[in-house]
């Protein structure tokens, strides 16, 4: 009797394990639509990127479909959440490629998740347009990988050029301890010399730290002419508040990572006078009518605000641009991924939210330095800096 129970329980266990395994047995049906995959950090630390990206992608796909789709075929978005976790991103891309049979992929939102999924997209020969900023994504060029977010190189250049006009020579930098901050710090350190700028003190802060006065005190002690803070909300807002508290009295530069109205809301009056590089979306209303992007920016910002009843940030624009680029390149391919890739590489002077894109086989980001403008926060809103 005992014996039987034991055998049975062994059997049961095996069956259980098998049952768990056998759960997935559906296969995707071939359909007459173009499926586009999306992988974004919709929740988790980087949700400030992923959430508007997802919304922008959905919005854009809807409007393309409303306009009749591509070559008479409708688009369908299949979007998964990575929670900013590379392993989940790898699972998601595999699901998109193998189960959903997507033609191309937009995302992921962050640099580590993008780096993790790149080999899988390449292996499957599926074009991927990342929404992350990291330089490692397109340098060196991977034939299947593109990106729409402006590189940190350009943001750093914009800041340093501005500093040069103000005669700033000694700076302190304060970067967030994650991939975004690390990439920023590398670029700041790499380019400082070119502009005759010395970094007198470099410090870091944790993404969820509650107080940065210690770091700022240390920077203050080194006597810089300005401080550059490189991070994404909410950390930089705390830095801004702390700097006001410590009466730092020197200009504060932030990165494009805080380029959203949220930053002004969080930092309040301490944000006054803060300088930062941003895509033109934040100041689209202030742009001269001659600006080539003005029309695109206005349309995107107004549609987004209308659809989701929340202010537009630059981040959703990465996905918006990616979908538009895909839509342009999809025409006439008949769903061939190789042709799609070749078409993306041939895109010239595509006016997008983040800038004007010109891809070549050696340039998979496609943006020029004018993708960034410098803005200053004055009276609780953005002002263009010349």
């Amino acid at each position, binding site marked *: 009797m005992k014996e039987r129970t*034991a*055998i049975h329980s062994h059997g049961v266990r095996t069956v259980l394990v098998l049952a*768990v*395994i056998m759960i997935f047995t559906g296969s995707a049906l071939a359909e007459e639509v173009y499926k586009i995959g999306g992988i974004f950090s919709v929740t988790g630390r980087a949700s400030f990127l992923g959430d508007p990206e997802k919304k922008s992608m959905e919005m854009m796909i809807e409007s393309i479909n409303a306009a009749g789709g591509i070559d008479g075929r409708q688009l369908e978005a299949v979007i998964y959440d990575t929670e900013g976790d*590379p392993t989940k991103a790898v699972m998601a891309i595999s*699901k998109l490629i*193998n189960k959903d049979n997507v033609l191309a992929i937009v995302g992921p939102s962050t640099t580590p998740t993008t780096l993790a999924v790149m*080999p899988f997209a390449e292996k499957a020969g599926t074009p991927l347009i990342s929404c992350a900023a990291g330089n490692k994504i397109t340098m060196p060029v991977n034939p299947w990988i593109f990106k729409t977010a402006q590189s940190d190189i350009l943001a750093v250049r914009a800041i340093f050029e501005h500093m040069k006009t103000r005669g700033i020579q000694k700076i302190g930098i304060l970067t967030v301890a994650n991939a975004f901050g690390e*990439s920023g710090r590398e670029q700041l350190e790499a380019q400082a010399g070119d502009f005759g700028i010395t970094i007198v003190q470099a410090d870091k802060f944790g993404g969820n730290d509650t107080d940065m006065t210690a770091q700022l005190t240390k920077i203050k002690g080194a006597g810089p002419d300005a401080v550059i803070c490189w991070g994404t909300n909410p950390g930089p807002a705390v830095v801004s508040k702390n700097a006001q508290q410590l009466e730092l009295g020197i200009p504060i530069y932030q990165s494009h990572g805080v380029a959203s109205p949220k930053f002004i809301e969080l930092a309040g009056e301490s944000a006054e006078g803060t300088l930062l590089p941003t895509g033109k979306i934040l100041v689209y209303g202030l742009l001269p009518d001659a600006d080539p992007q003005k029309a695109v920016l206005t349309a995107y910002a107004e549609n987004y605000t209308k659809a989701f009843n929340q202010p537009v940030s630059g981040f959703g624009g990465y996905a918006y641009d990616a979908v538009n680029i895909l839509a342009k390149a999809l025409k006439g391919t008949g769903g061939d991924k190789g042709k799609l890739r070749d078409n993306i590489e041939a895109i010239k002077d595509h006016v997008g939210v983040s800038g004007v894109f010109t891809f070549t086989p050696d340039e998979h980001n496609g943006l020029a330095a004018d993708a960034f403008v410098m803005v200053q926060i004055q009276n609780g809103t953005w002002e263009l800096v010349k």
Partner: protein
Amino acid sequence: MTPSLKKGVAYALACSAIAGIGLAATNPYHLQVMTFIGINSLLALGLNLLMGYAGQISLGHAAFYGIGAYTTAILTATYGLSPWLSLPMAVAAAALVAFLVGMPTLKLSGYYLGMGTLGFGMIAFIVFREWDGVTGGASGFVGIPPLAVGPLNLSSGRNYFYLVWGVLLVAILVCRRIIDSRTGRALRAIHDSENAARAVGVGTMHLKLQVFVFSAAVAALAGFLYAHYVSFISPGTFDFLMSVRMVTMVVIGGMASIWGAILGASLLTLLPEWLHAFSDLEMVVYGLIMMGVMIVMPQGLTRGILDLYERARERHER
């Protein structure tokens, strides 16, 4: 049937099941999910030996997972070593660290041990993140080569699935043997009553350390498999939350049960995939399921489901 025959049958069944799944699953996505389940099962298996059998909690085990992954990444991608040479070194590195950390830490008990291991895990995570010249820092480490034997590329979907589950089967066999040995009995004895175990002459410190080192080595092995599969690693994969997830796999599956480790790892790997449909509700549902399973089956899924089955059978026989 003798116990050894029974075990033989169970293994034959498991082997053929794995082979069958490998042949039946045509979708690379399914194979990939199964591969991750295999890697996570390996993690849970090693930790289960420590938690379920030796009764020692570790809230920093992701560190060893990371040490395995980073060691092989650095040796193969930076120094061009063959992965098969870096494998023993990755495992040895984790074992050595576990030995050095375990000596003082395992003297702690209960929540203090939890805190000690947690602290170690945090320090390891910070090292992965900040030692950017070597580990690639927060953005991660790219370009880890795939595994291959001669012309056979193991890193393709089906082959890697077989590799991971083959390794897992061997690991299960090894764990079984340890549990059934003098060492394993002594471990279970420590778990039941440390006092009495000491009184019959079981050197508890020594044994705890051995198991700690062993489970760290298993975690490093899993890290090796992960690194060469994904070919990219970043510190976030080996953070505190991963350590907690590992503990959760063990407890949800059922402590002191080898099948429990696999069941727990499967559930925690699959759940997020299923819950995608819930979108923003995902976290809420995930949390509820975790609490629910523990409230209904505090002994873990294996025990809980077996109980359900036996109850149903009794009712049937009556």
